[in-house]
């Protein structure tokens, strides 16, 4: 059974429809990438799945349980986590306090502060530092750690590599691969097509709120992905 099952999500901002019926599934231990240019509706899709944005239609199920009618904090407690764009850490709290807030889901699981510091060794020495003072890479590590502290079944990450150095992105993906190997479902929004090709199990490309391509890294190329993200339908190569 799929961990995350999203059907026909329709979402918009006022008159503008940003997501026109997107369907996707993520299995345990799978990393699904959603690609697309700015304004493709990726962030709205993720926020709608998490319950942070009110979807106009469609359904979201976690391990077969429909959570479409639950509010954002109940979805988080059901095991669905979103690492938002820009990380959104609480800047004036310490790393430890940020991580502890992640445990607000009150779920059972393997993640503790010690386990997070084992997964991200560079965070251990920053334990008492204010989150706002960290580098982008360190903040991303805290944001991922904070999501893990809630012991989720599925984690969605928005714009993982945005604003990070290549080395920091590398570290973040190392950690995400370990998390995937533990059996979590990962749904990742990424602008960097090369990064997606190197790490994905499955790929979805969106343009103007529609899915224009569903594929796997072995069956596609950079050119095909780029073409799809500019709106060329499946099969038609620019």
């Amino acid at each position, binding site marked *: 059974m799929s961990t995350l099952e999203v059907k026909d999500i329709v979402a918009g901002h006022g008159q503008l429809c940003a997501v026109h019926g997107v369907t996707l599934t993520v299995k345990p231990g799978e990393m699904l990438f959603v690609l697309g240019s700015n304004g493709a509706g990726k962030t709205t899709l993720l926020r709608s799945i*998490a*319950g942070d944005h009110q979807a106009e239609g469609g359904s979201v199920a976690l391990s077969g349980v429909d959570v479409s009618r639950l509010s*954002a*904090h109940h979805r988080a407690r059901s095991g669905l986590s979103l690492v938002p764009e820009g990380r959104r850490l*609480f800047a*004036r709290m310490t790393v430890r306090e940020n991580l*502890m807030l992640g445990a607000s889901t009150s779920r059972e699981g393997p993640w503790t502060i010690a386990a997070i510091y084992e997964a991200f060794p560079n965070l251990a020495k920053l334990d008492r530092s204010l989150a706002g003072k960290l580098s982008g890479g360190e903040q991303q590590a805290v944001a991922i750690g904070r999501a893990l502290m809630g012991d989720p079944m599925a984690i969605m990450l928005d714009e993982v590599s945005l604003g990070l150095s290549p080395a920091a992105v590398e570290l973040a993906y190392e950690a995400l691969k370990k998390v995937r190997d533990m059996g979590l479902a990962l749904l990742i929004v990424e602008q960097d097509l090369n990064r997606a090709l190197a790490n994905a199990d499955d790929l979805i490309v969106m343009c103007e709120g529609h899915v224009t391509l569903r594929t796997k890294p072995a069956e596609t190329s950079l050119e095909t992905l780029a073409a799809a993200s500019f709106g060329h339908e499946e099969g038609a190569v620019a």
Partner: protein
Amino acid sequence: MTSQLINAVLLGGYYAVLATGLAFMFSVMNIINLAHGAFIILAGFGLFVLGSDLGVPLPLAIVIMIGVMFVVGFILHRVVLSRASGGGELLPILATFGIAIILDNLMFQVFGADSKSLAPMVGDLAWASYELPGFIFIGKISVYILTAGIVMIGALEWMLRRTTLGHRIQATSQDRATASLLGIDTGRTAAIATGIALATGVVAATALGLRSAWGPYDGSAQLLFAFEAVVIGGIGSLWRVLIGAMILAFAQSMGAMIHPQGFLISGHLAFLAAVFVRLGGRSFSLKSLLAKGARA
């Protein structure tokens, strides 16, 4: 002169007690609760009914009323403030202003216009004093009120910085959407914060009732001093409220030394000076009035 300075410090302690709940509400929820004074008076009547009519000892009555006002605050947020705060910064102000008017008149209906005091419930303590060197006497109650203010602010700061609840309140106040994504029930957290703010009003009501007497319409006078103390001190840490309250009390005491009627005027002048410094040419908004916005 020494005596006046000491009395100004003690008066500042009283203003700090009045203002703590108001500052807590604004700094953690960005709501200016114009009914804060009316809720203090309501808590005062509650203490009076428990103490004078039912014969409950004052300390027990305070504990009971803290529980009652917490529940009142929780319900207030659930029923009124959670809806009002979705509509910009002006709507909660208007909503709490309306609540203040309703409460004032309800209390007039129920309790009449007579002044009430809690002083008879504490016997000798009402006029007991400490003697300091130099033939200076200071009221014991004033000292207790100052102590209560410091303890209350210290306890709230500790709660916000060191406890899970405090961190959840801060998270809810700084970034409600992200707090929800972490599994925090932000509506419930904000309602608890409102309950805590109103519970501090019980301490203020006790201070008011022991220092003097109050009537059903005295809420707005309490609110005015509390609001001035908050604006003078600014937002950021609740300790700033104590500083603001001290400055207000010093200004009033200095004014009274200059002219017998200078007490209120110079307090208001200190408030206006703080407003002009804060705004400093910027356009008016609650955020710039209270400076720096979100708490640390």
